[in-house]
């Protein structure tokens, strides 16, 4: 008889060596854990820096000066004037035809006192921005700001303001950063995304179903599959050029709305941009859709077929409902990408300056990324502040669309 420990030479460490071996394996694990933790922390730092940068620009002190001295308008400070006196000030200090235009938009009698007050500020006093400061400066260097204002602009009014206001959302584009808003761009982005989803969702899901459920494994279908995978990596500006050639130029009668009786002159419309975005996100949506469909367990399909269901009944009643949460996740990712895309929009001709709301798929439009891009390229510092505000609007829009999609997804995965 041989005893285990004495006679059989074991390849495994014994006794003290075994303990050391376990400790060393645990150390290796701890090192990797630290590496993964630092990767997460780096990501968090990057995100915090981004948020800090945006917020830093959105709030801060602004020194403004009125082009007209309020003291010259009336005996009393204008804050104490009542509505009739304010209207009188307006009438006295504006050109007659400009005043008539205002009256035609909305009679003075119908306007509230604060509305008239705002008009006096805007049309008569005409505030000019002299200097702006970031949130960090406003917070930590208040004394320096006060000193600078006192020496350089003794007349100026210094106030802390948020560049992102309710008015910012509801006013259209303007060349004056104090009065510019993102209304047109926001509506443009919403229109564009709605139409993009409208086209991309059915086409993407349809293609995913065909490729996953019907396409046989032959050379032709493999080529299609490979090409879809590659298309997902094509730079977006290439899609922009494709969209320019196909949708803006070739399909101009369609995209300008001429054959629908809504002629907008040329093909640089919301629908052309949406179709371009659709091309851009289709590969992502198809690939995600296929993965979601592939993840539906075989046992479920077998159960359905075993009851005498046809292929289509199996797909419709079991495969699609069970793949839907995954398809929604893919759609969220794809749409998020489309919302933030700028390059293809520039190529297909989104307007950079437009003040009329888009009124349908064939309208001229601009989009939030275009607006941000436009503002960030201006030299005046005020535009950096409103660009940051527009970024906040874009981020909030993105997050709320994602939230809706997540809610939808959860709703569908709770079925049954």
């Amino acid at each position, binding site marked *: 008889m041989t005893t285990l420990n004495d006679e059989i030479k074991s390849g495994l460490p014994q006794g003290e060596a075994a303990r050391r071996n376990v400790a060393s394996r645990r150390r290796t694990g701890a090192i990797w854990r630290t590496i993964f933790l630092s990767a997460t922390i780096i990501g968090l730092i990057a995100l915090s820096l981004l948020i800090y940068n945006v917020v830093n620009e959105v709030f801060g002190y602004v020194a403004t000066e009125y082009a007209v001295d309020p003291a010259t308008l009336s005996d009393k400070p204008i804050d104490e004037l009542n509505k009739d006196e304010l209207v009188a000030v307006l009438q006295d200090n504006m050109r007659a035809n400009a005043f008539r235009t205002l009256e035609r938009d909305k009679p003075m009698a119908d306007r509230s006192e604060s509305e008239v007050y705002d008009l006096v500020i805007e049309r008569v006093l005409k505030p000019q921005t002299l200097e702006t400061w970031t949130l960090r400066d406003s917070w930590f260097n208040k004394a320096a700001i006060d000193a600078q204002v006192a020496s350089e602009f003794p007349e100026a009014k210094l106030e802390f303001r948020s560049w992102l206001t309710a008015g910012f959302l509801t006013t259209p584009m303007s060349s004056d950063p104090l009065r510019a808003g993102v209304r047109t761009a926001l509506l443009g982005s919403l229109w564009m995304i709605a139409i993009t989803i409208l086209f991309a969702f059915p086409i993407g899901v349809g293609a995913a179903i065909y490729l996953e459920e019907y396409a046989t494994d032959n050379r032709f279908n493999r080529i299609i599959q490979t090409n879809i995978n590659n298309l997902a990596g094509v730079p977006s500006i290439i899609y922009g050029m494709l969209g320019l050639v196909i949708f803006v130029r070739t399909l101009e009668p369609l995209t300008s709305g001429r054959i629908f009786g809504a002629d907008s002159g040329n093909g640089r419309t919301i629908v052309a941009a949406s179709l371009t975005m659709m091309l851009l996100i289709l590969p992502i949506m198809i690939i995600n859709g296929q993965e979601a469909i592939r993840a539906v367990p075989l046992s479920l399909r077998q159960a359905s077929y075993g009851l005498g*269901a*046809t292929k289509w009944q199996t797909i419709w009643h079991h495969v699609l409902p069970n793949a839907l949460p995954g398809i929604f996740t893919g759609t969220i990712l794809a749409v998020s990408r489309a919302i933030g895309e700028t390059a293809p929009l520039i190529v297909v001709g989104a307007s950079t300056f437009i003040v009329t709301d888009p009124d349908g798929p064939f309208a001229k439009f601009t989009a939030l990324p275009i607006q941000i891009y436009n503002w960030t390229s201006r030299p005046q510092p005020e535009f950096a502040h409103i660009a940051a505000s527009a970024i906040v609007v874009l981020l909030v829009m993105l997050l709320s669309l994602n939230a809706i999609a997540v809610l939808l997804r959860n709703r569908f995965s709770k079925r049954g």
Partner: protein
Amino acid sequence: MTEKQTDTANYSLTVRNMNVYYGTFRAINNVSLNIERNKITALIGPSGCGKSTVLRSLNRMNDLVNGARVEGEVLFHEQNLYANDVDAVEVRRRIGMVFQKPNPFPKSIYDNIAFGPRINGWKGTKSEMDDLVERCLRQSALWDDVKDKLKESGLALSGGQQQRLCIARALAVEPEVILMDEPCSALDPISTLKIEELMMELRQRYTIAIVTHNMQQAARASDYTAFFLMNDQRAGELVEYGPTGDLFTNPKDKRTEDYITGRFG
């Protein structure tokens, strides 16, 4: 166990010279088998011997496997199921199937059962459907467990209950034959016993073919047993087929005897 083997009216399914291929690989070699009406036929044999493949060929479930091909005939009411004018969808309604792992749909218990009739063109009223659901659940001995929670998900049931739900679901499309592919392999002994009792009940109205790894199960819960084995080319062959009592007490083939006595290498 005294039916005359020559009386074809007693056969629910007749398999003649069946070969099954996966691509170029022959998985089943020349199997002929008669499945008796209103009896339980067990298909036994070691892993990989092709018993599940044979079972799945009986209602054309193998059509769903890429590259699977069946030669020979499977006669059902004197009609070859593999004839060109036979639609597999119709075959699968009349020859139902219960799978190894309980696979209820992620829907309510009610909808699990109502699904089959609905997709097969059910024309009845809501109350007729209620009756049908109750009847199927009673037949599968599940009614008392679930009658108060028909709207709850089928996935909330225990494994054994899920499998009985799957049987109830199969019954709802009024099949003549029920194929069971190792229906108890994922279940505990008590649930297994319930399924076996259920099979005994169902035998009065349906023909049942069951694949099982469990020889005790075949011995106690089947009327006929077919023993399969791989040949040298790794293709499944039918070694012996006969009344369960005879096969287990007096096997004609040496290999059958080795297998059922556990002496198989």
